[in-house]
């Protein structure tokens, strides 16, 4: 099992008159097909860690390797490229582009990557959405869907370019119990059947317990249970 994400002493300090330490000396290593929970009290730095791992933010110090490549020397363009090909994001709020239909939203990352033909993209988007139970909603706009449906569209979009890593920040945080269960089940399926590595921030202790591994953060640092 090869290592997908390897962080050594990651630290992120927000520069200010009184600097705020978001992440402090975090070292971790995540391999293929892992289902990882990031837990911790509110304000402990869970989101901050996820942004660092997703190359949305740069660490103040420490090293981070994605798929064996050091992210430190990458320029902005390369980081964008790595996000595009290697990662999918799911946030607490769906974050879909409101002017585009559900299927177009899923197609956008594919079009940006540009490796498939347009009919292939369309086919793949349709397949992804149907597999997430959205068969009847392909041509709707995001605001015509329920919260749970939107979140599933976001999951479909995160899988658009078939990335090895899916990062989810409280993906079920704004959903009711039934939708939460559904989305959680989908994430679990991604790991078990599609060989993805999923790192999900969750407040839900019970959910975290059902995952392979738990990273517990307190005040920006990892606390061993």
């Amino acid at each position, binding site marked *: 099992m090869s290592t997908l994400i390897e962080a050594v002493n990651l630290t992120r300090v927000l520069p200010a008159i009184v600097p705020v330490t978001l992440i402090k000396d975090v070292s971790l290593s995540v391999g293929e097909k892992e289902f990882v929970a990031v837990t911790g009290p509110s304000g402990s730095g869970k*989101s901050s860690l996820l*942004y660092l791992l*997703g190359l*949305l*933010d740069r660490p103040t110090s420490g090293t981070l390797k994605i798929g064996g490549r050091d992210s430190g020397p990458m320029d*902005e*363009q390369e980081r*964008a*490229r*790595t*996000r*595009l*090909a290697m*990662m999918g*994001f799911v*946030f*607490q*709020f769906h*974050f*879909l*582009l*409101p*002017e*585009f239909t559900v299927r177009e939203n899923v197609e*956008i*990352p594919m*079009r*940006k*990557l540009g490796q498939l033909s347009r009919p292939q993209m369309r086919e793949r988007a349709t397949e992804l959405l149907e597999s997430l139970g959205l068969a009847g909603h392909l041509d709707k706009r995001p605001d015509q869907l329920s919260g749970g449906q939107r979140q599933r569209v976001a999951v479909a*979009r995160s899988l658009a*370019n078939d990335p090895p890593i899916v990062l989810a*920040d*409280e993906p079920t945080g704004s959903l009711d119990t039934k939708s939460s269960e559904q989305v959680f089940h989908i994430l679990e399926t991604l790991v078990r059947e599609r060989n993805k590595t999923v790192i999900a921030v969750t407040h839900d202790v019970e959910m975290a317990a059902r995952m392979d591994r738990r990273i517990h953060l307190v005040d920006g640092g990892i606390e061993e249970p």
Partner: protein
Amino acid sequence: MRLILEIAFTHIAGRGRQTLVAIVGVAVGVGFSVAMAALMQGGQDDFVEQLINTMPHVQITDERRTPPRQPAEEVFGAAAISGLRPREDRRGIINPTAALTWLRGWVPGQVAENLKAQGVIRYAGRDVGASIIGVDPDAERGVSPIVEDFVQGSFDRLRAGGNNILIGDTMASRLGAGLGDTITAVSSTGLSRNFKIAGLFHTGTTARDEGEAYVLLKNAQILSERANAINEIRIKLADPNAAPAVAKRTEAELGYKAMAWQEANESILEALVVRNVIMYTVVAAIMLVAGFGIFNIISTITHEKARDIAIMKSLGFAEADMRRLFLIEGVAIGAAGSLFGWLLGFSLVYALAQVRFELATTGQEMTRLPIAWSFLHYLLAAGFALASAAVAGYLPARRAAKLNPVDIIRGAT
């Protein structure tokens, strides 16, 4: 790239009314710039054309730009010679026949020689100072529009030979003389001869109408006691723009001062340049204002779409993509505005071209506004508009591209 275009389009389409205002702003700017340029260029062309028609394109006089070297200077290679009394040159173009033959051999246009002498025209005890110009009627016809300007008599009467003279109508009225009267011309050397008025001209230029008198070249030479002399050669070219080159070659060969019409009217042409500078400044100012409209809408979009920017960045769009996106939006508005501006400009110019009015002072024929139809005006106005749109789009685009997605995602959750 198509993707970026599509996203740009949805953004613009999402703000219909504001987009429309921005487009109208650009269109009005482009339209009025085109109309203004057509008017200004038209006026200028009109003016320059008159200049070209009335003036000789190259005028060769018997002057030199630098005083001729004195014989002593030719012989002794000294650095400075003082106390030398310059040899008195006889004025006039030396060896005129050779010079004229040489000129007629290569100049693409008409060449006419004349002898201009200062003198006095006298009639019934009244004196008027005048330039007495001796011309060859056949050659003169080719270089001077005065042939067309006769109110009484005609230029051709000069050709008949004899002691005929043509004077301006103003001079005639100052002298109290009319067609067929005999006047006396007195040269600066004191010689006087009688001439019969064979024609009266009116050029519209007062200095000429009251100060010029035309006689046969031979008569002028007799009057000024300079047989075979000429002191001016005028050239009318097929292509007025060739004048400086012709002047240069002539001056180099003959040594006499040869002045192209551009040089003679340098200050007027400079004034035209200043006028153009002012015009383009005004165009630029209009476009600047139109640019504010574009800046405003793109800024609004980038603020409104901050969340979308964060989403796209998290999906893997780079800063350059985001910059391009909003730049395209600005330029698209500029392009749409330019297109409508062209239509507006065309309509305005067309409308202006229909306007006719009567010049009150001369009370003559109906006049149209001088209008120049030039595609260049359209290109220039659109160029200005697009450049201003690009800048107006680029500034907010650059800021939007730099937005940190983390800040926005945090802010939204």
